[in-house]
């Protein structure tokens, strides 16, 4: 019984943080938002070298055969640094869908970083992320995975998430229902971890600002109302993270509660990150609301991720249903 990351996992997180902290990710995000993908693709390669894209791919195809807990470690780092690109699709959804099918070559391309894949999951939306830059586009409809034909790029509420409508093309593979459920849950989990990471960044930015900014002659971080609001975010994030980890364990163990646990993680991580965004904006005041200030990159990212991969209403309903199905369990 040890409910904590292993030393290896903590080391992995540190390596990712070191790389990303040195990569000027805000600039990468801004370029990506303007359709200039060069810096983002370079970063993709460097993250691939650290194993991020191949985490869930099989060893035989050059992947790491890592588990869902490892995945949350990586995606929390991606969220903390607002890394752009179809990471959830390429590194979580598609490897989870296609392991054990005949798509070995595709999976090898994922692990090597050569394949940048995106997908539309039809019961969760109508657009796919970054289909303009992806090398592969898919549509998952029910249990069938199709190739996808992308339309024009739309801007989205997070400019660094470029959304395209996608239409289903040729069928790629028909999958077992359990596989699709598990793969989509894995994607939701990755998104939840991203939210956690983004929330951590926003909290840290708010704390830094509160310590340095003075108003009425005192650092605003001395004011109790603000301190307590920031303390509440620390609590919310600290309490969302174990739910994300438990959901990862449930996926790893193939628990029948995995879907419920993943939904609970998404709701909690989304709420915590959202509160962090709201408070960070309040702490920064009007400047946090400007485009030139980096804070907005995370604020709009959180806004998008809260709704992406299933709205809070959808996941809340799943938790309700799962819990109230067994009366004694509410």
């Amino acid at each position, binding site marked *: 019984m040890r409910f904590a990351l292993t030393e290896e996992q903590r080391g992995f997180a540190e390596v990712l943080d070191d790389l990303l902290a040195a990569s000027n990710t805000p600039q990468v995000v801004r370029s990506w938002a303007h359709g200039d993908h060069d810096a983002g693709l370079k970063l993709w390669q460097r993250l691939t070298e650290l194993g991020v894209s191949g985490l869930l791919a099989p060893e035989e195809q050059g992947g790491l055969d890592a588990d869902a807990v490892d995945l949350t470690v990586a995606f929390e780092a991606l969220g903390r640094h607002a890394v752009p690109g179809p990471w959830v699709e390429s590194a979580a959804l598609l490897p989870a869908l296609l392991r054990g099918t005949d798509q070995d070559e595709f999976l090898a391309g994922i692990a090597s970083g050569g394949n940048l894949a995106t997908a539309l999951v039809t019961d969760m939306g109508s657009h796919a992320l970054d289909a303009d830059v992806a090398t592969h586009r898919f549509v998952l409809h029910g249990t069938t995975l199709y190739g996808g034909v992308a339309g024009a790029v739309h801007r989205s*509420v997070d400019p660094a998430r470029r959304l395209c409508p996608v239409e289903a093309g040729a069928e790629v593979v028909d999958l077992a229902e359990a596989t699709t459920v598990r793969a989509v849950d894995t994607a939701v989990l990755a998104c939840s971890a991203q939210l956690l990471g983004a929330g951590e960044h926003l909290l840290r930015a708010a704390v830094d600002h509160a310590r340095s900014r003075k108003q009425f002659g*005192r650092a605003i971080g001395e004011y109790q109302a603000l301190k307590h609001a920031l303390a509440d975010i620390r609590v919310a994030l600290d309490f969302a993270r174990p739910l994300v980890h438990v959901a990862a364990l449930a996926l790893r163990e193939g628990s029948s509660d995995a879907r419920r646990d993943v939904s609970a993680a998404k709701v909690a991580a989304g709420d915590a990150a959202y509160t962090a965004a709201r408070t960070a904006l309040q702490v920064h005041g*009007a400047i946090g609301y400007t485009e*030139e200030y980096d804070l907005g990159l995370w604020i709009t990212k959180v806004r998008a991720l809260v709704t992406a991969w299933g709205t809070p209403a959808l996941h809340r309903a799943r938790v309700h249903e799962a819990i109230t199905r067994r009366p004694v369990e509410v």
Partner: protein
Amino acid sequence: MDLTHSAEDEAVRNEIRTWLEENLSGDFAGLRGRGGPGREHEAFDERVAWDRHLAAAGWTCLGWPEGHGGRGLGLIQKVIFHEEYAKANAPARVGHIGEELLGPTLIAYGTEEQKQRFLPGIRNVTELWCQGYSEPGAGSDLASVSTRARLEGDSWILDGQKVWTSLAHVADWCFVVARTEPDSKRHAGLSYLLVPMDQPGVEVRPIDQLTGTSEFNEIFFDGARTDASLVVGEPGEGWKVAMATLGFERGVSTIGQQVGFRRELDGVVAMAHENGAIEDPVIRDGLVRARMGLEVMRLNALRTLAGSSTGADEGPAASIAKLVWATWHRSLGELAMEVAGAPSLVADAPPYDLDPWQRLFLFARADTIYGGSNEIQRNIISERVLGLPREPRP
């Protein structure tokens, strides 16, 4: 206690309603719903024309005394005007800063010459104004102003920077709070100056916002000049005048604002019915709470109106109203995004890049910051209404 209007008030209502119906037509018909917070860029020139059309018909500056070009209307009739204006979905006014903030300030504190020089331009919407209060690093703390002005001969010379200035890029004039006594601290030694914008010493830079628009600006004063006579109130007593202006900011237009809120809420509810989000009990409860919250804001405004004839201190009431509407509006933005679901993520191209719900979400978040943050409002309520001690200042 009653909530019915007198026959006289109803007659005013009918007059306004009829005039708006007849005049928001032809070239002006397309202006319905344009402008407003987060959308000040929309159809700006056409809205200037519309404001001048209003002025020509005598529908600007309704509450000013008749001698200054107003109509001397009472509070309730002004409220009725704003209600009808909002119900007609008439465009957001461009001259409101002059009409609602500077005008009343000049009427109270200005010299005769200043009134004659500036009130007609405001009333006829031939001169637009902006408000030079906030500074970088000062935020809600107006007393820490560091923009400086010195009298040289016949002119004030200004150096410094203002920020978050609405509409500065289209304004002809700015009322500026500047420090005119070099070593003064906090509230002392400030003056309230009227400064022309079209001069070499004034530079305006728009601030791009998360909404993709930029109605706020920075203003840089670098040896900017204005005439020595253009100080409102005594030099060094600008704090008092500036506070008076802030008092006028909390005007009767909140009732009109609520009509706009109601329209937004109705839109969110309609969307929830259309896409089925109304079936989610949490969303449904949120919508009902929003509806009740709006009703309460309306009633509070009516109550404040009833009390305002008593001359009681309205600062705290305004703080309560601001705190509540800002929080309500932010929640509505959040609710709208939750109701909209995944489609809410997709947008079109700038500067019209956001649908109304996205804009509501992004802009309403700022409501709890601008015009006095929620924290400041709670301080005011706890200190001035409840009589709790002030926080220790270093």
